[in-house]
């Protein structure tokens, strides 16, 4: 009978992680001011991409939703959570219809990154890294994914020089506790053990805010961020 106790403990841990890591930080990212007006992209120089879009694709420098919600904000634990190892599974950055999916891709340092070309045209993937190593590779259609990983935390702008409207971000973090806001601006950072955390919200190109949160147990702490946007 004594030996069954650890088994139950393990089972409990496996079945209900919420009991072990109760803390959750969730909230909403909004904006004040006037967001920069996004423009329709003219893809006529690349017909194989243009025909994939019924309506013109808009630039994604600022993406907003109803009630002043701000999308594409990366919310992450910048201090307090242990620097967990990179997950074994890769993150994927897809080029489709001459657009990046997703526009903002967070990943852990050392995590494998797969860059996939689903288009019928060549792209060049040019991450403009400054802390990490800048590189620039061509990827013709039908070629295998380009695999890479980043050693240092950094917000890396990604460009395709052949299709200058293609623009995205690799967000390399030292944590696995991150979320990217969607059109409703909301985010959730679950599975946080008790402790004091610094939560950072980042929006391209270089807007950053931080707040401190203390998690004491099985609770959900609410946390909101607001970015002041300028129309230019």
């Amino acid at each position, binding site marked *: 009978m004594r030996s069954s106790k650890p088994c139950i403990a393990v089972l409990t841990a496996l079945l209900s992680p919420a009991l072990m890591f109760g803390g959750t930080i969730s909230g909403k990212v909004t904006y004040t001011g006037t967001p920069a007006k996004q423009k329709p992209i003219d893809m006529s120089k690349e017909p194989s991409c243009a025909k994939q879009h019924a309506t013109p694709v808009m630039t994604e420098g600022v993406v907003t939703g109803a009630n002043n919600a701000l999308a594409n904000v990366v919310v992450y634990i910048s201090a307090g959570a242990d620097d967990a190892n990179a997950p074994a599974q890769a993150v994927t950055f897809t080029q489709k219809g001459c657009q990046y999916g997703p526009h903002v891709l967070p990943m852990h340092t050392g995590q494998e990154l797969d860059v996939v070309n689903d288009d019928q045209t060549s792209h060049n993937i040019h991450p403009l890294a*400054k802390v990490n190593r*800048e*590189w*620039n*590779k*061509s*990827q*013709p259609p039908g070629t295998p994914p380009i695999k890479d990983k980043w050693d240092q935390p950094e917000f890396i702008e990604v460009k395709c*020089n*052949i299709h200058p409207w293609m623009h995205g971000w690799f967000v390399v973090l030292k944590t696995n506790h991150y979320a990217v806001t969607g059109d409703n601006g909301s985010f959730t950072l679950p599975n946080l053990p008790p402790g004091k955390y610094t939560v950072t919200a980042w929006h391209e190109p270089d807007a950053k805010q931080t707040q401190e949160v203390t998690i004491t147990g099985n609770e959900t702490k609410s946390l909101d961020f607001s970015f002041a946007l300028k129309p230019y």
Partner: protein
Amino acid sequence: MRDTNKIRFFLATLGFAAAVSFAVAQDAPDVGPHPPAPPVLMESHIGHLVGHSQDAKTDYRRYCVGCHGELGDGNGENAVWLDPKPRNFTLATFKCRSTLTGTLPTDEDLYNSIGRGFTNSNMPIWNTLSNQQRADLVAMIKTFSPRWQKEKAGDPIKIPAEPPVTIESIAHGKALFTKLECWKCHGPQGKGDGPSAATLTDSQDQPIRPYNFAAGKDDSRFKCGSTNQDIYKIFMTGVDGTPMPSFADTIQPNDAWDLVHFLRTLQVHRHGKENDVLKAAGGKIPDYHDKSSDAPAQPNGGN
């Protein structure tokens, strides 16, 4: 016994004193000028030449600092007047490499760049400096970015022996030029007027032009050397810091030679074996029909 106790007491006191003085030193207010950071000493190795960064100080201050700046960040006092901008050595990103994109160049790559200068820029050919002076300057360049202390230079790419130029190799090169969409920037005739050409910027957001193969009579305008091997290297390793990507993952070594042969024919005014072969074939590049499986089947069979 008493003696050992004395010694123990003495050592303990000494340790305590050391700890206190260390703590005091840590808490000392931050006043006065800081002593200069200990200089990073670097070496370079080019063949039998060994360069030493500390020996390049005078030359760097005399010849380089005006554009590349004291900190090597490309912000020398002349920089505002220059286009293209002087290289920022603190980023350790270099155009002319024999190594893969994203890796550090070899010492020899940097040495050759100094000796060759950069066409269409204010970087002259430093043939007034001795080989030793240039080697020392290479070592100096390596002091400006910590990457040189943490990483080794990349391995130079392997270049197989150049096969003979034939009209077939030129035709295959042309097919690659089309398929790999080199023309998107360089233009169908290699005049640097492709559909994306006008939008290009380098990694510092400065406008930059794709290479115009057709202009000029000779090879002097190639930035990273003008031999066939140099051209092979340029597109395989990419020109880091610019829109020109690396094709090392996508072009097979012998295919790369075919592309070199075709690129030479874009230099329409150049006298060389490639244009001779083209002329002998009637001046027209025939259509290329791929016999391998990766080409889509031609519905009408071609010829």
